[in-house]
């Protein structure tokens, strides 16, 4: 086993263990941290495939932005974890059965000798920068979906604002100018009432 395969198997093991911990960890913060580890390891595997741009992107975008936000939400929400996991053991046998069945079914299809895709030979020659190539493609051949993706992000922003914004807060502040000009009749109302006798 050469060094590359050794690194690959090491990273894969860490990835699988971390992914398992994401769904089994009791503490949601631990789950989120394990997810970060999983993304990081995934980035490592991509770097092994010479896709250094994707490796950096997943770490910057997922670990740097998405997961930090996720952690914030998890820490700020007071999630009662025991109530969520109440049905876990009850549903586990059935869920596991279905999961195993699906794995077997897919294995039968994918594992057959007909399902062979030739291994990727996309090893970039020396002197070609992956990042530069992706950048050039993105702004030339793929400019149309790229621009549309930006519109999708905009729609996401519009949706988030429309669904949560409830108008400006009417904060209670005092306006000294109005206070100075207040007249007695603005505050006191004199009523004429008949005299009551008893």
């Amino acid at each position, binding site marked *: 086993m050469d060094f590359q395969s050794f690194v690959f198997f090491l990273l894969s093991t860490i990835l699988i263990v971390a992914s398992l911990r994401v769904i089994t960890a009791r503490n949601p913060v631990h789950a989120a941290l394990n997810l970060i580890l999983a993304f990081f390891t995934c980035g490592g595997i991509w770097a092994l495939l010479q896709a250094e741009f994707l490796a950096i992107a997943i770490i910057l975008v997922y670990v740097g932005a998405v997961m930090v936000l996720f952690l914030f939400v998890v820490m700020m929400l007071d999630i009662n974890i025991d109530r969520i996991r109440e049905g876990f053991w009850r549903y586990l046998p059935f869920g596991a059965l279905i999961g195993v069945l699906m794995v077997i079914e897919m294995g039968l299809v994918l594992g*057959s000798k*007909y399902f062979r895709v030739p291994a990727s030979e996309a090893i970039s020659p020396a002197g070609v920068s992956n990042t530069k190539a992706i950048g050039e493609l993105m702004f*030339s051949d793929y400019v149309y*979906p790229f621009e*549309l993706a930006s519109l999708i992000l905009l*729609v996401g922003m519009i949706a988030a604002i429309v*669904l949560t914004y409830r108008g400006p807060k009417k904060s209670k502040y005092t306006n000294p100018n109005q206070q100075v000009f207040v007249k007695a009749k603005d505050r006191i109302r004199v009523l004429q009432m008949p005299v009551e006798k008893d």
Partner: protein
Amino acid sequence: MFANFVVPDLLPAAPEIFLAFMALAILMIDLTVKDGRRTLTFILTQLTLIGCAVIQAYTINGEVTYTFSNMFVDDLMADVLKIFLYMTVVTVLFYSRAYVTDREALSKGEYYVLALFATLGMMVMISANHFLTVYVGLELLSLSLYAMVAMNRDSVASTESAMKYFVLGALASGLLLYGMSMIYGATGTLEITAIQERLAAGAVNKSVLVFGLVFLVSGLAFKLGVVPFHMWIPDVYHGAPTSVTLLIGSAPKLAAFAITMRLLVSGLISMAPDWQGMLTILAVLSMAIGNLAAIAQTNLKRMLAYSAISHMGFMLLGIVTGIVSVDGRFALNPFAYSSSMFYVISYVMMTTGAFGMILLMSRAGFEADELDDYKGLNKRHPWFAAIMLMLMFSMAGVPFFVGFFAKFSVLQAVVATNNIWLAIVAVLFSLIGAFYYLRVVKLMYFDAPADDAPLVIPTSMNLLMSANGLAVAFFGIFPQSLMELCGVALTRSL
């Protein structure tokens, strides 16, 4: 730096570019609109859509043009579908106008901007020639619609249906993407026309392709809303604000038809025997469950939702029978596809009218979406009752309305390929379906009105609704023009 960069030909995509630009402009202009009714935003939105239709009409040349590195295709099918798309969205927004302004949560500039972005998503889907464009267009459409369903945020029903729509829609996108990645793995390209060339050249791993195809068809079935991927349709149609239901139920069917044609017929025609079987099962199940479940509904929106499921099943029959295998080679039968396209267009026409009727009957604080709200409509407003009668007869497939010719031409295509049992099943379930359409007619004409509130309909809406109802009757008596248009569009595009 960009040594081999060529500026793409922007003319075929001119309507898309115009719409995107105007949507952004309207988003900014709306910030200055103080009017709670958003009249300026509404007018600008409608002008934008009409402008798109004008640009589209001027750039039709009947040729198949590719641009943006073959990611975008402009052919006659796309032109025709897009023009119907603009007409539908304009009509939808006119019908929704009073309903939206009566409800504070919906009456925002973003409502119109999101409708424009949804339209843009559908246009991208119709003109897609690349898996990536199909997906990006689909997401643009779906995200805008999720947000529009949820906009009525103080209503529990709307929020719940938005959540269901979002989760199931995301699942469907996942299935579609997984299928696409498998097909990419087998053919090595994402470009739809190139996939077809690779498949025709042979030497492609068949089992990987079929594996991907299963997921691709499942994803498409989710978006079309056919059984067994239909569960979201009744809940979303029922829970969404009626104006949004109208948008979800009408125009996206045109786009879903277009991507089905592009993915299955243009891209994977060599796989036809495989997907024909899958689509047949989907179609038969949809016609059965859609028509039977609709009988049990008491809510008109839910009933129309199940009717949508059955209609989409019927439409799939045309796509199934479009390819005839002649000693190992595949011959296209444009007649079957044009019957499917005619079916989709006429279905959109009918469903726009039917949901439009619910919108016009509703008023502030009252939704006219129960079947009982239509009792004795003939006494309250005879003309609207007559239009509703035409729409229901047309959906049921009563002769000399457009729905009859739609069903008739699809059945003709089915019989032409000797699938007699399929035709019998389709006719049988349409007969069962006629029951619940006729029940609406019975309620309108033979029952006493339960609600005596006078119907106040502005003249403009009255005119539009009349035009919609009369179009259903007109194309029922003279279907040739529309039928020929669909036929020419498909023979020029395939």
